[in-house]
């Protein structure tokens, strides 16, 4: 069954959305959209690093993604203006990554696979990595779920309950780095943040509880992945962007009609 590239692509898309649904909900709730973008863009730099040093690409991506997250957190703690800082970091990371990749022989030609993903070329090993990463992220979020939600609602409330909001933020940062490494094959560095944010935003108007929103975001992500693949086959469009196009259409639909389900 896994010998069919379409089956592998479909499973990779569904597996990714298992992680991006719940994590994307936190990205939306905590207004980390730009942070997600910065981390995802930094992945290109990670790819360049890995190729230059013969490390596995995933190791390079996770390393750089975590380095980016730590840089952002450090600057935020020093009181830097976050919107500007993230803007500078996100675009610089992408630019540095693209320049760095150009020094690595043979990569220039399939740069677009890293930028836009190549879900139709997902191997069995890639598929294992996607599902493995998704399960790790899901387990991490499930383990910290109550604490994460409390810290997201109000950091002082979490503190007073004996939780450490900084530790919970670190959990999300690690989860984000893993998701970036997992998602780059599927939707590409440029659209990872979209895969996090668009399904979660579409789920918002259908949901009355955080858990419902995470579940709807997962479902919408999976439907978008399958729909995007279908669109890609049918119209010969690039698969990664097609997935986001479907998710955006779902968002438009729930934003327009979803309010009627709300109390």
């Amino acid at each position, binding site marked *: 069954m896994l010998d069919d590239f379409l089956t592998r692509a479909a499973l990779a898309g569904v597996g990714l959305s298992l992680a991006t649904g719940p994590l994307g909900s936190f990205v*939306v*709730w905590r*207004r980390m959209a730009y942070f997600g973008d910065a981390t995802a863009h930094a992945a290109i730099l990670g790819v360049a690093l890995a190729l230059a040093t013969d490390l596995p690409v995933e190791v390079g991506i996770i390393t750089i993604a975590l380095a980016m997250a730590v840089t952002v957190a450090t600057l935020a703690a020093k009181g830097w203006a976050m919107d500007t800082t993230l803007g500078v970091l996100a675009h610089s990371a992408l630019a540095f990554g693209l320049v760095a990749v150009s020094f690595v022989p043979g990569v220039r030609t399939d740069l677009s696979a890293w930028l836009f993903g190549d879900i139709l070329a997902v191997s069995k090993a890639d598929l294992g990595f996607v599902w493995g990463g998704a399960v790790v992220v899901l387990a991490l979020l499930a383990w910290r779920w*109550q*604490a994460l*939600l*409390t810290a*997201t*609602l*109000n*950091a*002082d*409330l*979490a*503190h*007073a*309950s004996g*939780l450490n909001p900084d530790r919970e933020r670190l959990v999300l940062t690690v989860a984000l780095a893993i998701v970036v490494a997992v998602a780059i094959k599927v939707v590409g560095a440029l659209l990872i943040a979209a895969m996090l944010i668009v399904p979660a*935003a579409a789920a*918002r108007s259908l*949901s*009355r*509880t*955080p*858990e*419902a*929103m995470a579940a709807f975001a997962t479902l919408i992500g999976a439907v978008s992945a399958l729909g995007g693949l279908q669109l890609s086959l049918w119209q010969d469009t690039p698969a990664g962007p097609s997935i986001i196009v479907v998710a955006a259409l779902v968002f438009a639909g729930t934003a327009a009609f979803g309010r009627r389900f709300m*109390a």
Partner: protein
Amino acid sequence: MTLIEANHVCVRFGGAEVLHDVSLGVERGEIVTIVGPNGSGKSTLLRALLGIVPLAQGEVRRAPGLRIGYVPQRLALDRSLPITVRRFLSLPQRVSAAAAAQALARVGLTGVDQLQMAALSGGQLQRVLLARALLSSPQLLVLDEPTQGLDQPGEAGFYRLIEDVRATTGAAVLMVSHDLHVVMAASDRVICLNGHVCCEGTPRVVSQAAEYRALFGLGTQGALALYQHAHDHEHAGGPHDHHHDHDQTHTHASGRHIHA
């Protein structure tokens, strides 16, 4: 016994000293109110006691295993996060439906458990925050300006609720406020703060202290009159049934009504 105490606590933000050599303690079952003008470090003191802000000097000691119920100054609810009252009450510890309903009834709310938190009025939200704090069976309730954004009847009602909670659960209460008269009427002890402890004692003692009067720009009789004015209202409402253990023998006749 002392539930929580601060010994010579100093807190600095950047170079500025926000709290200087603050010492205080809260005993089992008492209601202590911290009053002070804006920027006097009231919220910072609570946050230092809760361990949220680091101490530059001094120490905070808690009774072993102390359970604290915290009601924050406000809960900024992001529209992107859907959450019902029922779900909110189960954070961070999951509670049974029966326990949640009981906590809501305790604070005088019924039929709100399926409402979105964002749909609550200011008064309802404060009561839900209090209900959540009560679910951990706290020995100490910490409230940071709990009546901000409430109108006067709402404010008075909320403080009556606090006294009632203390009377039925025996929990001590430590709260911060900048409104004076209603709070002082409901407190056993008042601590007047302005970066350091200016004065402390029963409401009656504090309201007559020169430091307190200077801090709030009050004349020779203003605060006492305000304080006793609030008492007059309570007495007018029925039999004397509240649980103050401050001087009950003061003469209400000496209170001057100061409104025009």
